[in-house]
């Protein structure tokens, strides 16, 4: 039952429009730093572009997807209109205004600090204010999700919260807490310096605050994808979800351990003690568990669907899956990319192996494969699945959809495999210029060129995606029926309170944050004379 269709559609359209723009920048960046670009004269444009691309892809696009999908889930799973419709519109307005406020100084070259802010570099204050507005807009969504859940629970005591809503609220809590780190960094450190109230900044502390956000933000990006795995995929291929409880456990584990592990982004930083790096590595290992649970559950659900369709044999059932169905294609390709990306992630998370790839192009290759690949391809699937329900029109260009999804997959592999490889060869990330004439670098030229072609494939796929959506907007009207989620194989009438509520898990999340971050942050705040002069970017010429 989708009621506020315009609200949800507005989120998706805004998300995909900014995504399209940032995709063009990404493809250009690939070309710019490849040997195909014979000579370029102003590296500044590259950093401007990377700042815009990273800010949009990292903050604006996934946030809008999570918000829009979250509202859709709230209405469809709880079967009641969204409470706080006006607030939701205010939230998206804040995100839109924040994006514009942030992008103006970036386009003018006044804030080429990259989306990770990189203090002591300090850009124009409006860039940071814009980012804060985006976050505040998303916090409205966080509040609305828990309010809607509470209102539903009041009328449905002792009933299990539908899995989609449970996961959605888990994601919103995770985001609400994880965004606090970057918010503290921006509000207490960077913005005062950008305003000129102070001229020095404790870059080490700022990096610790950012790491608080940096790991769990990736799970915030991931959660819509996982929700789609659990609640859209089994239904779309005509099967059942293998286990509802397994899904809850996975989302609960994300809430508890996804956040207090961000120091694994600071392995090379001197300001955090080795003991805390070790502790957070251990918990990082733990966060692989919910992903393994998920992969198992989703494969089991696929097997159920296949056997229902007459698939047989130990592996023969794979062939009997409905491969003509775009959601099937997207999920399978997503899992493949998740597998490759996860293997790379094991290298990132181990203290010693990390040193060999730290700050190389491996890292950008890795997160593009996981985020741009495994996650974003499911955003496409979500849009394809929801579109007929939102527009009230048929969406039946299945051939085009499959082509688009396959192109995204191929493009992502062609882009990121060589990208990882040049990282192993030692190519640093975030540089606008490589002298491929140099004998030490020339062996990387071929791989970088290949990546640039991969970027073009991705751009083509992105354009196809927008074409499918636009065609959907103008297709003949067709009733899509009620929007439903996958039905589990066995649905218990009652669930243990632990799997139906969040209090305990939020308490564990906050407790672990205190254990894992309390001392490192407290110590950095207590030690005097740890600030360095701010480096103002794009100041007067």
């Amino acid at each position: 039952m989708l009621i506020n269709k315009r609200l949800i559609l507005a989120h998706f359209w805004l998300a995909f429009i900014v995504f399209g723009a940032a995709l063009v920048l990404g493809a250009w960046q690939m070309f710019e730093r490849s040997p195909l670009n014979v000579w370029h004269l102003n590296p500044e444009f590259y950093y401007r572009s990377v700042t815009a691309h990273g800010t949009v892809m990292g903050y604006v696009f996934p946030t809008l997807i999570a918000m829009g999908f979250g509202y859709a889930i709230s209405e469809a799973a709880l079967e009641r209109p969204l409470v706080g419709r006006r607030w939701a519109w205010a939230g998206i307005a804040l995100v839109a205004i924040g994006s514009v406020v942030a992008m103006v100084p970036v386009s003018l070259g006044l804030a080429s600090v990259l989306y990770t802010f990189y203090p002591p570099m300090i850009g124009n204050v409006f860039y940071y204010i814009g980012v804060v507005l985006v976050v505040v807009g998303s916090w409205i969504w966080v509040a609305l999700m828990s309010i809607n859940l509470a209102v539903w629970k009041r009328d449905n005591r002792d009933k299990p919260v539908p899995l989609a809503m449970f996961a959605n609220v888990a994601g919103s809590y995770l985001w609400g807490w994880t965004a606090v780190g970057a918010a503290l960094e921006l509000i207490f450190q960077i913005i005062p310096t950008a305003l000129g109230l102070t001229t020095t900044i404790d870059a080490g502390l700022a990096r610790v605050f950012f790491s608080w956000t940096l790991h769990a933000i990736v799970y915030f990006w991931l959660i819509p994808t996982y929700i789609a795995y659990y609640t859209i995929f089994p239904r779309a291929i005509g099967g059942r979800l293998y286990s509802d409880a397994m899904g809850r456990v996975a989302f609960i584990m994300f809430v508890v351990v996804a956040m207090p592990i961000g120091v694994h982004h600071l392995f090379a930083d001197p300001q955090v003690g080795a003991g805390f790096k070790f502790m957070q590595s251990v918990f990082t290992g733990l966060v692989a568990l919910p992903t393994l649970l998920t992969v198992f559950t989703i494969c089991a659900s696929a097997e159920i669907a296949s056997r229902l369709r007459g698939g047989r044999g130990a592996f023969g059932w794979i062939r009997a899956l409905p491969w003509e169905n775009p959601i099937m294609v997207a999920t399978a390709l997503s899992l493949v990319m998740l597998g490759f990306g996860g293997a790379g992630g094991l290298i990132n998370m181990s203290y010693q192996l990390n040193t060999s790839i730290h700050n190389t192009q491996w890292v950008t290759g890795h997160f593009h494969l996981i985020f741009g690949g495994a996650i974003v391809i499911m955003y496409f699937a979500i849009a394809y699945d929801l579109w007929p329900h939102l527009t009230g029109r048929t969406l039946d260009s299945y051939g085009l959809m499959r082509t688009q999804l396959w192109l995204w997959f191929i493009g992502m592999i062609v882009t990121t495999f060589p990208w990882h490889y040049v990282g192993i060869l030692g190519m640093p990330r975030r540089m606008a210029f490589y002298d491929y004439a140099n004998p030490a670098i020339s062996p990387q030229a071929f791989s970088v060129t290949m990546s640039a072609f991969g970027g073009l494939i991705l751009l083509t796929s992105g354009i196809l995606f927008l074409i499918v959506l636009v065609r959907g907007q103008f297709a003949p009207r067709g009733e899509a029926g009620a929007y439903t989620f996958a039905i589990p194989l066995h649905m218990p009438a009652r669930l243990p309170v632990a799997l139906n509520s969040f209090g305990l898990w939020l308490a564990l999340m906050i407790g672990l944050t205190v254990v894992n971050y309390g001392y490192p942050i407290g110590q950095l705040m207590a030690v005097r004379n740890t600030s360095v002069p701010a480096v103002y970017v794009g100041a007067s010429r």
Partner: protein
Amino acid sequence: MSEDELYSPRNPWFSISVGVTAAIAVLSAIVGLIWLPLLQPDLKLSGIWDAICSAAGVPNLPRPAAAVPPTFKTSNVVVTPEMLTRQDQVSIGRGATLAQRCAICHGPQGVSDANSPNLAGQYAAVTYKELNDFKTGARVNVVMSPFAANMTDQDMRDVALYYAYLPRVPSSQLNPGLPPPAIVVTGAPLRNIPPCGSCHGEIDIKAGSPWLGGQSAVYIKAQLQAFAAGTRRNDISEQMRNIARQMTAEEIDQVARYYEAQP
């Protein structure tokens, strides 16, 4: 089923999840904060408490008297982005009077005919720092050192603000269309040379870096050679020496000619 039951050790969900989380935290703390550090002989730890402090990242006070002082004077100026950026009419007026002594070499309008640096429109922080370095002996020049020796701190600020206030005048070699050499726009990453333009303008301006446009090519070249040879060493943290040492003679010529031709 009520909430009270959840927060009770009798509820297995509660006891197992809290227990397992706490156990992992405690175990990883013991391994990370005690056991692993004690395994490392290089750390020279005196006991468990020392291991915990070391692994937690408690800062170690540096052992005293380790630093070797340089045998020559280094600049003692601390440059900040705000330094001398405010216009002060009284200061500029005083500076104008004081600057009459400088005019014989640096020109009455702050523009030199004698390959001495042009000071008109130079950032005040830059002029101030150089004067200060001449005074303390961090930079040595037979003509300039005696002039600076008798200047007070206020004198140096006033003169610097005065020159910053004068308009820049392009050199007779002005040619803004001249394409910038690669070293100016991209640097030479493999030799650890950042683009000149990332500090001296065009791309970005960093506090304390002089404006080079319109400066005499002879002067720029002489300074780069002095940095490379180590006869000039008042650049903070060897910023320019590290760059100049890595530049080729040809690049030095190119940048000297390029900057002279800029406004």
